[in-house]
């Protein structure tokens, strides 16, 4: 299994979070700006009515007989009528002295004659908007200044403002929802080419090293091109080493085959025992080295394949049957009978090539160690778990070595007369382990080695 890379958050989550946070901020700012703007407009509305009221009162002020008279119309106050029944106070002062109205309205020194002055104050526990203006009246003896204050509570205004805030809030919420959805989609669209690349690489089998050809966004081009060049290099290396192994095997085995054939032919003609022994030693050496080479290659292949296990549905009985057929001629040379006991197809998830190789190695051993004219039994059972048992009627495993035997390059003590590098059982065990199973070595009751694969 490849090492799992360390994870530093998710691009998608990060992007979504940033975009949603941004749209939230934007919505809040929008809310306050729109509400402030609406509040100003509403305030300006109230102010203009108050100003009209103030000016209608101040316009009514005249000096008659040296005294100031203010006979303002009813409309001066009726125009201030609101649906919230806002309270209205007024004060008319002459040179600071209250002429009429309410004392609670404080004086201000920022009175102007050309337009009204506005301020907001708390009077008698309520918030009031006060408009004020002054006018200089010129009488016969002297001139005098009349100032008018009109104050109105803001119940109606705040009611309006509340309504506006509610509407603006709803609008901003809709805006936020919309932008959040957009952010999600945008993040998804940005990350999609990445995840598509990842899943397309993941879907490939271990041997598929073709370059990635689908179009990608320009930002991903460096990643994809370095991925492609890495795969290209890997492919070349693999092909080269596969070719190399095949070529090496060919180069080594062909001359070995020549030596073996000549030795065998010569052995038929030679009678002197020392020459014969030399020839036999030669043949043994050839067999040993070729078998060792073969098993080393097999072992290398198994180590490689076990990393990228090509799992598919396989029938153990079918594999074993094919194997028995292909090894039958070898069995025949010793008049061995391969007895196959299966209860129908036994399906497991596995790599057929690895399984076949493992069974072949064990069956090879069994055929090698079994005495002439005996039986080698292969049993395939389905329950309680898929099991393949291969047993012979030879000398069996040495009892004291049974555990150590599956270690690499270890051969049993009593194997002196047979050829083998000792990798066979190691291969069998590696394959079983790669499939999550195990191999058990036992000796039969009446002698004979018995190898059981639990898969």
């Amino acid at each position: 299994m490849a090492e799992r890379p360390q994870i530093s958050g998710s691009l998608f989550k990060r992007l979504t979070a940033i975009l949603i946070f941004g749209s939230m901020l934007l919505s809040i700012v929008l809310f306050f700006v729109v509400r402030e703007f609406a509040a100003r407009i509403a305030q300006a509305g109230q102010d203009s009515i108050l100003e009209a009221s103030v000016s209608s009162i101040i316009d009514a002020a005249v000096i008659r007989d040296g005294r100031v008279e203010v006979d303002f119309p009813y409309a001066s106050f009726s125009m201030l009528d609101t649906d919230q029944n806002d309270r209205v106070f007024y004060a008319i002062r002459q040179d600071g002295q209250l002429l009429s109205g309410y004392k609670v309205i404080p004086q201000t020194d920022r009175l102007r004659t050309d337009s009204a002055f506005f301020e907001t104050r708390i009077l008698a526990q309520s918030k009031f908007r006060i408009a004020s203006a002054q006018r200089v009246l010129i009488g016969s003896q002297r001139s005098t200044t009349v100032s008018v204050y009109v104050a109105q509570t803001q119940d109606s205004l705040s009611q309006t403002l509340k309504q506006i805030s509610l509407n603006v809030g709803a609008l901003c919420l809709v805006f936020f929802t919309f932008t959040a959805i957009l952010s999600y989609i945008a993040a998804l669209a940005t990350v999609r080419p990445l995840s598509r690349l990842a899943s397309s690489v993941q879907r490939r089998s271990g041997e598929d090293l073709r370059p990635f050809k689908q179009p990608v966004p320009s930002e991903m081009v460096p990643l994809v091109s370095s991925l492609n060049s890495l795969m290209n290099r890997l492919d070349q290396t693999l092909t080269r080493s596969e070719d190399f192994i095949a070529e090496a095997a060919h180069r080594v085995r062909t001359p070995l085959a020549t030596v073996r054939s000549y030795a065998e032919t010569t052995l038929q003609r030679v009678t002197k025992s020392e020459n014969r022994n030399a020839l036999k030693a030669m043949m043994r050496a050839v067999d040993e080295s070729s078998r060792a080479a073969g098993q080393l290659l097999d072992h290398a292949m198994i180590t490689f394949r076990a990393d990228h296990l090509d799992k598919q549905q396989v029938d153990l009985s079918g594999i074993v049957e094919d194997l028995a057929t292909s090894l039958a001629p070898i069995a025949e040379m010793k008049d061995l009978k391969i007895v196959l006991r299966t209860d129908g197809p036994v399906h497991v998830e596995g790599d057929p090539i690895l399984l076949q190789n493992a069974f072949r190695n064990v069956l090879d051993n069994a055929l090698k160690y079994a005495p002439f004219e005996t039986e080698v039994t292969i049993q395939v059972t389905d329950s309680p778990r898929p099991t393949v048992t291969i047993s012979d009627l030879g000398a069996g495993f040495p009892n004291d070595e049974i555990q150590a035997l599956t270690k690499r390059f270890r051969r049993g003590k009593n194997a002196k007369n047979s050829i083998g590098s000792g990798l066979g059982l190691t291969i069998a065990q590696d394959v079983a382990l790669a499939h999550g199973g195990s191999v058990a070595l036992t000796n039969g009751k009446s002698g004979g080695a018995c190898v059981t694969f639990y898969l």
Partner: protein
Amino acid sequence: MKFLLVEDNLELAKAISNRLQVDGHVVDHVGKISEAIDYFASYEYDLVLLDVMLPDGDGRTFLKHQRTQNDGTPVIVLTARSQVSDRISMLDLGADDYVTKPFDHAELEARCRAVLRRKSNDRQTTKQFGNVEFNSIEGRLSVGGKTVNLRNRELRLLEVFLNAPGQIFSKQKLVDRLFSYDEDVSENAVEVYVGRLRKHLSGSPLMITTLRGLGYRLDYG
């Protein structure tokens, strides 16, 4: 039997040919696919031994060609590779079996016999001597209508004798033919198999004669 050996390594080809000739077979040797196709078109063969890597192509090319000719001659592939996948692809393309180089000739012989047993018909492979019928492919011997299936060593021993009736075989020679070199057997082990053959052949015109100090000889008549 007549073999077509397709192998580009001259030394190996010579060694294999020699070994097959010891067993009394006839071997034609070619070193290229193109030659193999020519020979194959001109002569009849019992068996083709085919190397995988050849100078003018892959052994697979020959297999494909042969299968398009609808020819049923058995092909045994000689491969130097040991990867199972390679072997499987050869069998898929119509090779009947394969042996991995270097190979034991006894194994090659056993595989040839197994392939021929699957492929050829009975009559061509049965030899007749008086009331004796011998099918070496099936390993079947019948004397006066009574049929026995020979054990592998009995079969091989009888083949050795029948290939050269009247020739004297020393015990040592017979040991070499019957036993693998790494089997530790004395020359007397041959006596057991000669004894068994004699029993099977009793009542027939075939007789195995013991020549003291020299060996054995098959006499007919």
